């Protein structure tokens, strides 16, 4: 290790003698300036509560560590070199005096040992600490959420202008420092300055975009978004920077130590180096090409030309891009107003009287138009043919919520008994005359109605309409919505509930449209109402709506009851004739049966009379016996012994069993 250190760059004498103290002074100056910029960022972070400044102060503060490491390493290298020169000088003198070498083997001096400790222990540890410091904002972001969510709501507008100046001060001062240090770092003896130079230029860039962000905010563009964007960009950069340092730290263990090559400290970021040496990108690219093609592609004239022409080409490209702002393309149906330094061309002050707006210069129509470049002239393009629409009838949180509710209403079968859209407006309406007469002594003589009211409109065709829409109201769409709501509320407050809901929809719509159209015209918004649609009118959805459905259902139920009554009646009356007929027929059958039976019995009796006359005793006996045979065929028969008295124990339960028991009992006596 010692030999390696002895062979490092600091032991080589540079081609021209460079003052090591100058680099150290610059490092100290860098440290001071970086510290001052940190204080500036700290001040504006506190004054503005800006997320971008909040991050910038931390990024700038870490730069102090980089400059400190640079300074201490430069100093130790100088001391080590001086110590080695002193030792060599002493050795040469001893040899000149014929004395033996004081040291047989080159031994390490105190300064060299300190340097070795610095480069092998302190610098890697400090690099890791630097990386952790750079990663801290990202870690906090993961743990606590984005810092800009707080900044967006708390950004204080009192110090916006000073904040711009602060950002530019940081950018300008650190840019000068960084560029100067980067220039010195091209000399190998001062190479260590590259780390501080790169870091300061990074801070300068971050300060510049912070200043630009605050410029946009003061202009009222994009609200506080620029602050958020800058915060995100700086955090992303710091995270990448930290990852690079950590990767370098790991790879450094495996890097072969070759004598005579420079050791790049861990805190000297290659990413930051891009700011100090933009041409380094080309060198890296060239080395890659050389390696891939097997010959020095980077030595070809084309590559050298490209390297030289790159920056001019980029600048030309940017210039051309900027010059594109001289052209305005107005498409069919659109109208454009050109503003020079914020004033529409030909207009210094907008008129007070509504009629005078139509006397303003005619806006540009479709075609290609030329104007002065931004920011001298800007174009406001509006689509006069575009038909915008707006729906009211329910509360919406935001644009996405409005679209979701509109889509749901469009694709769902809406019934009164179900709440399909939350937060529907309940418009107050007077009680219908008939209901009022019913004499309720209610304190509130009103009904509630919900519905969907939709309008379509566009910017009017009069010359002044474009100007009115652009300049008269801060938020024309919000104003249109308010007027729309006002007219619907006022109209419904004086309309008949059933006329609107069912009986006179056409008249209702026309009356409301006429009223709304007049109101929009009177407000001077410069728009033209094209259509008013009223749909989905209903009493408050849910139980109230259901009760209205039940009235309709009750009509059906009434009819059902009546029909059921008729069905029952038909059932009752329909079968009555047949039942009557049945009764008659049964009577007839009985009558016939009685007659026939009587006749046959008479015949039967005569035949028995004849038989009896012929054989009086035997016929009667035969008759009696046959009767017994037939009658007793299925009867249970018990023969009791002679003189046995049959006693029925329980006359109520006369049964064969009782009789049998009685017989047995009597027999055993």
């Amino acid at each position: 290790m010692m030999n390696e250190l002895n062979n490092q760059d600091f032991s080589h004498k540079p081609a021209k003698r460079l003052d090591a103290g100058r680099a150290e002074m610059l490092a100290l100056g860098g440290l001071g300036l970086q510290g001052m910029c940190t204080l500036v960022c700290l001040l504006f972070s506190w004054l503005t509560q800006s997320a971008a400044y909040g991050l910038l102060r931390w990024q700038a503060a870490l730069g102090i560590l980089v400059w400190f490491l640079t300074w201490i390493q430069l100093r130790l290298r100088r001391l080590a070199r001086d110590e080695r020169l002193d030792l060599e000088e002493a050795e040469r003198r001893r040899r000149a005096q014929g004395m033996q070498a004081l040291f047989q083997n080159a031994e390490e001096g105190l300064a060299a040992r300190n340097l070795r400790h610095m480069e092998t222990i302190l610098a890697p540890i400090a690099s890791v600490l630097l990386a952790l410091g750079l990663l801290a904002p990202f870690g906090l972001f993961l743990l606590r959420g984005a810092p800009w969510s707080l900044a967006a709501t708390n950004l204080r507008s009192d110090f916006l202008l000073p904040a711009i100046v602060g950002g530019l001060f940081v950018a300008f001062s650190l840019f000068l420092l960084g560029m100067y240090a980067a220039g010195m770092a091209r000399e190998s003896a001062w190479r260590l300055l590259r780390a501080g130079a790169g870091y300061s230029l990074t801070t300068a860039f971050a300060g510049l975009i912070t200043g630009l962000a605050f410029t946009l905010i003061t202009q009222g563009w994009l609200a506080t978004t620029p602050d958020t964007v800058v915060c995100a960009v700086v955090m992303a950069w710091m995270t990448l920077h930290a990852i690079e340092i950590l990767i370098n730290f790991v790879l450094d263990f495996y890097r072969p130590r070759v004598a005579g090559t420079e050791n790049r400290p861990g805190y000297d970021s290659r990413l930051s180096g891009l700011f100090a040496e933009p041409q380094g990108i080309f060198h890296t690219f060239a080395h890659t090409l050389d390696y891939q093609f097997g010959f020095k592609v980077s030595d070809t004239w084309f590559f050298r030309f490209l390297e030289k022409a790159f920056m001019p080409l980029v600048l030309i490209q940017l210039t051309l891009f900027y010059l594109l702002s001289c052209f305005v393309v107005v498409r069919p149906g659109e109208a454009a107003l050109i503003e020079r330094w914020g004033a529409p061309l030909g207009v210094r002050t907008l008129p007070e009287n509504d009629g005078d707006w139509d006397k303003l210069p005619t806006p540009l129509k479709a075609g290609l138009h030329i104007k002065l470049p931004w920011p001298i002239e800007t174009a406001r393009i509006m689509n006069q043919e575009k038909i915008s629409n707006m729906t009211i009838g329910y509360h919406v949180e935001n644009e996405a919520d409005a679209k979701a509710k509109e889509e749901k209403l469009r694709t769902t079968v809406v019934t009164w008994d179900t709440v399909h859209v939350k937060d529907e407006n309940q418009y107050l309406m007077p009680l219908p005359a008939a209901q009022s007469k019913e004499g309720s002594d209610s304190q509130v003589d009103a009904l509630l109605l919900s519905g969907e009211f939709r309008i379509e409109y566009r910017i009017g065709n009069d010359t002044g309409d474009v100007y009115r829409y652009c300049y008269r109201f801060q938020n024309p769409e919000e104003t249109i919505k308010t007027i729309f709501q006002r007219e619907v509320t006022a109209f419904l407050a004086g309309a008949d509930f059933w006329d609107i809901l069912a009986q006179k929809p056409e008249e209702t719509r026309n009356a409301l449209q006429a009223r709304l159209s007049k109101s929009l015209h009177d407000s001077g918004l410069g728009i033209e109402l094209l259509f008013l649609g009223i749909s989905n009118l209903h009493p408050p959805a849910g139980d109230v709506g259901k009760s209205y459905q039940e009235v309709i259902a009750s009509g059906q139920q009434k009819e059902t009851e009546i029909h059921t009554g008729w069905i029952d009646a038909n059932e009752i009356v329909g079968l009555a004739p047949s039942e009557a007929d049945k009764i008659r027929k049964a009577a007839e059958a009985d009558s016939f049966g009685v007659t026939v039976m009587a006749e046959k019995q008479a015949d039967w009796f005569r035949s028995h009379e004849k038989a009896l006359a012929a054989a009086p005793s035997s016929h009667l006996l035969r008759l009696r016996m046959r009767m017994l045979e037939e009658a007793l065929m299925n009867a249970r028969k018990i023969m009791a012994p002679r003189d046995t008295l049959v006693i029925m124990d329980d006359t109520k339960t006369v049964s064969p069993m009782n009789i049998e028991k009685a017989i047995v009992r009597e027999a055993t006596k």
Partner: protein
Amino acid sequence: MKRNRWTIAVAALIVVMLLLYTFCFTVQANTVAVVKTLGQITSVRTEAGLYGKWPWPIQSVQTIDARERQLSVIGKEIPTRDEKNIIVTVVAAWKVTDAEKFVTRLGDDKSAETKLSSRIEDARSRVIKTVNLGDIITVDPKQAENFNAFHNSLLKSIRDGLQDADYGIDVTHLWIPSIAFPPSVTEKVFARMTQERKRKSEKTIKEGKNEANMIRNQAQLQQAKMLANANADAIAIRGQGEAAAAEFYKVFKENPELANTLRKLDALKEILQKRATVVLPSDAPLDSLLPPSPQEKQ
């Protein structure tokens, strides 16, 4: 070195542009710029265009939007003259009419909106108490007139207040986008609407049931009449049958003893055929069960 010149040139350009920005300002159409020199208002620029100024902190510019903008004042529960509490949301369109007074007396938009809000709330509270709810929510043909009168009265009250205060702002339009009852009253309106409909639906259903029952009753009456007639006819028919049968039964008079014996035998046969148990002493004659024959009687 050449490369450095490019870099420095671009950086210098950016810095120069940014510095120029601190020496110039623009006034957009329908905005007003108030220029302050060391904190004092020194000029007010109402015409749109490019103007020069000394950089901060010597001069600063406060730009004021002179367009009409909306201020929504959320409703609060206020009783009307006929003691019916309502919640009226008011939206005012206001604009800056005198930028210098606006800056001096109000400072910024936020402060202006706070003061304007309180004045609108005050005027609303007073004016609502002078109107009857029944005058503005009614099917009466004068409703529109009453509503506009209420609206104009509110606008006038606010404008008068602002004129007295001389804030440098004016309310150009006033809108009432929403009139509502307090939630508890709204619930009662819901309940009343529900009950009113329920009453109607139940009445309709009852009408149906009544009509159905009447139809059934009529049918039952008709049926009863028909069956009664049929039963009457049946009695007559059976009587006729019995009369006809009686003619045949005269033959039994010729030998009543035989007729009775035969009838008894028939009756005994019918009786004994139904789960009968016959207990006979072993010495009893078989026909002891039977009624005595005419010969035996003799």
